[in-house]
C-alpha cells in the first residue's frame, strides 16, 4: 500500500472520534449523527451482500468439505496473528501475547505455514486483538456510529483501528507480489467464510428485519462492546426489567 489514503482516513476518523466523545443519549445505544450517509452506505452494502457475498458464501459452504474449510480458516487465522500480536503488546496483555506468539511459531513451522492448527490441538487458544480495542484501552471513546463501505458496521474509533491495523500489518508492507496476492485473496476468502459462519444470524438481520440498518447497528454495537470489554467480565449488558 503506497498511497496516502490510509493516513488521510486515519486523521479524519481520529478527529471525528476525538471531537464527538460521549454524545450517546439514553434512548439509543450509540450516537448516530451520520445516519443519512450511513443508511446510504448500508443500502450499498446490503446490495453487495445480496448479489455477491451471500450467494458466494452459500456456494462456499455447500462445496467445501468441512476439513478443507477448517484448513482455510487455519491459514487465514495464522495470517492474522502478527496483527493480533502487535495489539497484544500494545495492550500489555502478556497472557494473550504468549499464546498468540506460541501459536504463530508452532503453526507456521509444524503446521505447514498455518494450514494445520497444531497449537489449538495442544490447547493454546487464539486471542484476537485489534487496534480499535487497543484505543479503547487507552481511554479513547467509541465516537459515533459509522457504517463503512464493504467493511460494514463500525464506530469512529473502530474504523480508525481498522485503518491502523492495515498499516501495522507486516504483510501490507511486503515487497513481494506473492505476499500481496495472498493477503488480498485471504481477505476475500475470509469475508466469504465469515459470511458462511454467520449465515442465519446475518440473514435475520439483513433480510428478516423491517429496518435492517437499525438491526445491524444494534447487533454490532452490543457484540463489539462485549468483545472490547471482555465477554466474561462484562455483566453490563444485563438489565433489571422489573425496575421500569
Amino acid at each position: 500500500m503506497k498511497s496516502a489514503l490510509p493516513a488521510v482516513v486515519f486523521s479524519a476518523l481520529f478527529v471525528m472520534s476525538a471531537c464527538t466523545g460521549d454524545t450517546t443519549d439514553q434512548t439509543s445505544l450509540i450516537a448516530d449523527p451520520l445516519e443519512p450517509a450511513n443508511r446510504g452506505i448500508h443500502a450499498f452494502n446490503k446490495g453487495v451482500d445480496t448479489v455477491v457475498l451471500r450467494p458466494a458464501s452459500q456456494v462456499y459452504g455447500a462445496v467445501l468439505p468441512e476439513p478443507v474449510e477448517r484448513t482455510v480458516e487455519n491459514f487465514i487465522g495464522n495470517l492474522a496473528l502478527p496483527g493480533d500480536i502487535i495489539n497484544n503488546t500494545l495492550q500489555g496483555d502478556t497472557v494473550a501475547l504468549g499464546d498468540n506468539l506460541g501459536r504463530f511459531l508452532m503453526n507456521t513451522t509444524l503446521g505447514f505455514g498455518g494450514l494445520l492448527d497444531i497449537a489449538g490441538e495442544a490447547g493454546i487458544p487464539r486471542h484476537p486483538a485489534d487496534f480499535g480495542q487497543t484505543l479503547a484501552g487507552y481511554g479513547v471513546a467509541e465516537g459515533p456510529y459509522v457504517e463503512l463501505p464493504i467493511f460494514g458496521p463500525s464506530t469512529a474509533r473502530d474504523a480508525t483501528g481498522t485503518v491502523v491495523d492495515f498499516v501495522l500489518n507486516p504483510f501490507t508492507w511486503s515487497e513481494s507480489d506473492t505476499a500481496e496476492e495472498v493477503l488480498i485473496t485471504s481477505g476475500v476468502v475470509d469475508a466469504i467464510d465469515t459470511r458462511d459462519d454467520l449465515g442465519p444470524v446475518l440473514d435475520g438481520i439483513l433480510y428478516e428485519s423491517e429496518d435492517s440498518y437499525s438491526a445491524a447497528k444494534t447487533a454490532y454495537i452490543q457484540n463489539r462492546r462485549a468483545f472490547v470489554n471482555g465477554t466474561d467480565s462484562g455483566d453490563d449488558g444485563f438489565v433489571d426489567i422489573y425496575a421500569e
Partner: protein
Amino acid sequence: MFILKSARATMLAAAMATLPISAQALTPQEATALTNTIADEVEGYVNSDMSLAQKQAAFRQTMDRYADTSAIGRYVLGVAWRSATPAQQEAFTTAFAEYMANKYGSQFSGYEGGEITIGSANDLGNRGIVVESTVTRPGSSPFIVQWQFSDRSGQPLLIDIVAEGVSMLTTERSAIASMLDRRNGDLDALIADLPTAG
C-alpha cells in the same frame, strides 16, 4: 408433651433464623437446572426432522412455559406500554410472543447438529442470575450464550438470552421502537403486523 412441643417450636424458630432472609430466592443451582431443561428442549426440536412451522410452535411453547413473556413485552415496548390500554398490552404480549417464535424459530436451521454446554452461574442481585453456556456446531467457531433468570415475578423465569454480547431484550426493544416509529406510533397497527413481521 407441652415441653416437647415448645422445644420443637424453638428449634424450628432457631433453624428459620439462620436461613437467609430471602429464603425462597432463586439459587444459581436452580437457574442452571432450568437452563439445562430449556436447552434440552430446544436442542431436541432443532435437531429433529420437524417442519419449520412445528419448530416455531414448539419454541413458542417453550417460551410460554419458561420465560416471563409479559415482563419482556412490557420492557420491549418501553414508554408506549405505559400509555397502552390493558387490552392493548395483552394483545401486544401475544403478538410479540408470536413474532419472537417466528423470527428466532426460522433461524434454527443454521444450528442443526449444535450442542449447548452449560457453564457457571453468576448472581447479579436485583438483575437475577446469569447462566453461562457455550454453543458448538460443526464447522463453526463456538459462541457464548448467557441466560438471565429472575424470580421477581414470584416464579423463577427466563428474562433474557444474550449471544456473544447481543441481548435479545436490547435488540428487540430497539427493533420494536423502530417499527412503532415507522407506523407513526400507532400501537394497534404494530400489534396487527407483528405476528408476520420479521
